[in-house]
């Protein structure tokens, strides 16, 4: 399977935020060197939009489409 180890600035920011257990999210956003449009996206607070942007970032660096479903399906009898 191909490596998908590269990722973009928004992903890096979220990883750092999670690892630092950062409590003040907005302060971390303001202090970051993210592009203004990414800061605005993060500040709006809708995770669905953020996830969509992260998936776009991943595809820009070669990742395959992301499959959003639990790995379970019972075929019809």
């Amino acid at each position, binding site marked *: 399977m191909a490596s998908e180890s590269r990722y973009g600035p928004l992903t890096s920011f979220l990883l750092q*935020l*999670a690892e630092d257990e950062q409590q003040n999210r907005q302060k971390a956003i303001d202090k970051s060197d993210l592009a203004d449009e990414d800061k605005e996206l993060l500040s709006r607070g809708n995770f669905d939009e953020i*996830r969509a942007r*992260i998936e776009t970032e991943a595809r820009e660096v070669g990742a395959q489409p*992301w499959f959003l*479903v639990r790995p*379970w*399906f*019972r075929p019809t009898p």
Partner: protein
Amino acid sequence: MAEGSLTVVGTGIQLASHLTFEARVALQRAQLVLCLVAEPATRAWLERLNPNTQSLNALYELDRNRSGAYEAMTREIVRHVREGLEVCAAFYGHPAVCAAPSHEALRRVRSEGFPARMLPGVSAEDCLFADLGLDPSRWGWQSYEATDFLIRTRRVDPSAALVLWQIGTVGSGVASAEKRPIGLALLVEALLELYPPEHEVVVYEASPYPSWEPLVHPVSLSQLAEKHVTALSTLYVPPRDEAVLDHTILNRLEL
């Protein structure tokens, strides 16, 4: 001869913060991590924990039946265990919940004599309890995968809460990179036989990112439509009415 082993873990729903200590240790100690997670940041984070991480995501084929992909994932996990590697298979959420390859890989490697175990994780339902402030013991709890709920004759108790998983793909059996709730109208139709049209249900999705709010969308049942649903939405249907007390049993128990 190389030993080979399998540990199956759940990464929880939220990036990094939901991982249990024992799962983290298993991920870091594994010779190979095979992961199936719901978004790229979690994948990147697993790579930081263990550079020998590969994604099972590539085994999905767009618009092809998902059951074929799950068999391919199972084979991939088992293959590396047979090669003698200490494998950690990581699934987002709880690895036992709505997760076919985790159970099947465990069954196969155990049947071949390899040591194998599963560690629990934080599921979407766990997040739903916390985010919506629900105690499943209060009314009782019924929990079904949405497509499975639709295609089988279920006896629903409207005095207990009902949760339907995966309404974002209800009625669809193929791999999709976006929501595909082709059976949502049928699902609403089925629920309207049990609940009044104005019954308020909640479309819910836990946030995958720490400190971001969950999506909580209350809507009357008859109005529930595709626009309310994300690819990973869960539907919470509150009880319609209170369960009837059995006074004979109450008296016999002297309660």
